[in-house]
């Protein structure tokens, strides 16, 4: 597969000197569902706006299909955007909103009708043609926004937190539907979200961003199982992150105890972040355990219980199918390959 979009050394600096993006390098493959994931202010929307053409980078190059497109205005780029709050035109009805792009390009009326109808069918809005967009529900507006962008047959569809305004159930439905549309039309989707679950469910690959830097690029499984640093680990799922130091290869020290692990290649006694997922903490009887703690709270979460355990000045989060009474003392154990060792994060994270 070849790259449809490449960003080379992109820097965005605002007039007041604030750097929003600091040296972004990124290749996006054709027909992929790519998600930019990160907390608000991390630069994900800014990156999207650079691809759409609403923003020119302070320095760096943007390539589309191998062509440099810096300075090409948005209306001449073969990408379309689904905006955060949809940005539907309030003076036009559903049909005219979807037909907008085609009318601008002076497509013949007959073809407009055909293509708009196709889109209405695809997003399940047949019969809503004449409806004013102000009288649609959030989910329906969302569908119109998607249809309005896709009707132009863009090579790349950009989606800026498109599901942010919907309730949970609708979000889940739309996630599946978006994925279906992307696979049906074989398009490249670039999707911006701060919701890690959404990113994991939908994407072929995820770009985790923070503070204007790309932290990690990889498939959902890679990102989840092999986070490269504590930030990614914490952002992708709730994690217990403790300070530790490497005694030698495959042996780490934290909370005053030594544990077997599987990581190598650190300097002796190097300070590291130790990351352990809540579901990887095993609850064992107190007397067999290296590490013990007192249960502070138990919350039933449906599939499992979430417990907060106080152990050596640190609150541990544990997911377990069995509940332990509040106030009891429990032991904790970990498999060596569940202990993730990460280099101490540098300034950039």
């Amino acid at each position, binding site marked *: 597969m070849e790259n449809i979009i490449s960003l080379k050394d992109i820097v965005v600096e605002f007039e007041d000197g604030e750097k929003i993006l600091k040296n972004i390098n990124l290749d996006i493959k054709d027909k992929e569902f790519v998600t930019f994931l990160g907390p608000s202010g991390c630069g994900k929307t800014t990156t999207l706006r650079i691809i*759409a*053409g*609403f923003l020119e980078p302070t320095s760096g190059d943007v390539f589309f299909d191998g062509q440099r497109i810096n300075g090409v*205005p*948005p*209306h001449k780029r073969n*990408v*379309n*955007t689904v*905006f*955060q*709050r949809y*940005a*539907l*035109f*309030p*003076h036009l009805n559903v049909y005219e909103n979807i037909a*907008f*792009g085609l*009318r*601008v*390009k002076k497509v013949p009326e007959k073809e407009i009708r055909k293509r708009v109808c196709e889109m209405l069918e695809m997003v399940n809005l047949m019969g809503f043609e004449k409806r004013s967009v102000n009288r649609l529900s959030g989910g329906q507006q969302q569908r119109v926004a998607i249809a*309005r*962008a896709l009707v*132009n047959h863009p090579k790349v569809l950009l989606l800026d937190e498109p599901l942010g305004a919907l309730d949970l159930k609708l979000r889940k439905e739309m996630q599946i539907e978006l994925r279906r549309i992307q696979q049906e039309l074989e398009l490249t989707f670039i999707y911006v979200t701060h919701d890690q679950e959404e990113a994991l469910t939908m994407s072929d690959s995820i770009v985790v961003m923070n503070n204007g830097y790309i932290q990690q690029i990889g498939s959902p499984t890679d990102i989840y199982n092999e986070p490269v640093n504590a930030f990614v680990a914490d952002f992708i799922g709730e994690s217990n992150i403790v300070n530790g130091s490497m005694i030698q290869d495959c042996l780490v020290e934290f909370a005053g105890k030594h544990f077997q692990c599987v990581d190598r290649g650190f300097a002796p006694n190097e300070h590291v972040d130790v990351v352990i997922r809540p579901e990887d903490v095993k609850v064992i009887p107190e007397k067999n355990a290296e590490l013990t703690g007192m249960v502070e709270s138990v919350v039933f979460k449906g599939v499992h219980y979430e417990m907060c355990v106080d152990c050596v000045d640190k609150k541990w989060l544990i997911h377990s199918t069995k509940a332990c009474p509040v106030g009891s003392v429990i032991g904790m154990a970990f498999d060596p390959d569940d202990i993730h060792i990460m280099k101490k994060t540098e300034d950039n994270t």
Partner: protein
Amino acid sequence: MKLKYFSSPYLVWMIVFILVPLLMIAYFAFTSDSGEFTMKYISDVGQYANIFVRSIWLSLIATAICLVIAYPIAFILSRMDKHKQGTMLMIVMLPMWMNFLLRTYAWMTLLGNNGIINHLLGLMGFEPVKLINTSGAVVLGMVYNYLPFMILPLYSVMEKIDKSLFEAASDLGCSSVSTLFRVVIPLSMPGITSGVTMVFVPAISTFIISRMLGGGSNLLIGDLIEMQFLGNAYNPHLGAAISLVLMVIILVIMTVMNQFDPDEQVLM
């Protein structure tokens, strides 16, 4: 205690001082001095057709000029940084707070035969030009006085247009010109219609601007009405008839304007 009775004092006031006086205009327009029904005054209005035509024409020109000047201003204001917008709007609207007569008087002194403009022309070696007491001066006075009435409604509509709509238009293939025609103008239509009425209505019915800047040769409907009530031509019946015709003209023009604005209902 029923809350709706709170409005009783106002309802009495409204009937006596709003409704009855308007009915009296109609009554005077259709009766003679002795109180008999007559169509004489209404048909007499026809004699002043030239004044009606001039009033409609000059105020339409003034309204059009206001729209052309105000539209870009309102757009520029609405796209400024939020904290600058308030101050800038205040600066634009400030002259409107000066008394109307003083603003018109200012132009009287500027345009006068011995006024500053002619003085400057003289210094540059040109012949003095007749500026005051022309229909151009009347239009200028209307534009100057009513421009803020056009800017304000346009601004308040444009300020509400979400920036993302411009981006969406651009994303869907619009150049800036086609964004203007396909998005900005349709969305600012309510502002255009209310701006046009807010300029046109006072412009067509003014008698001060025409008197101060137009001299005796540019009589407008307003002058005509004023003359029937407070001038030498004292004839309240004819004055009422002219007022009635004026109201009908305005009603017709506003109805036409409202055709352009799907959201707005005809108020009267």
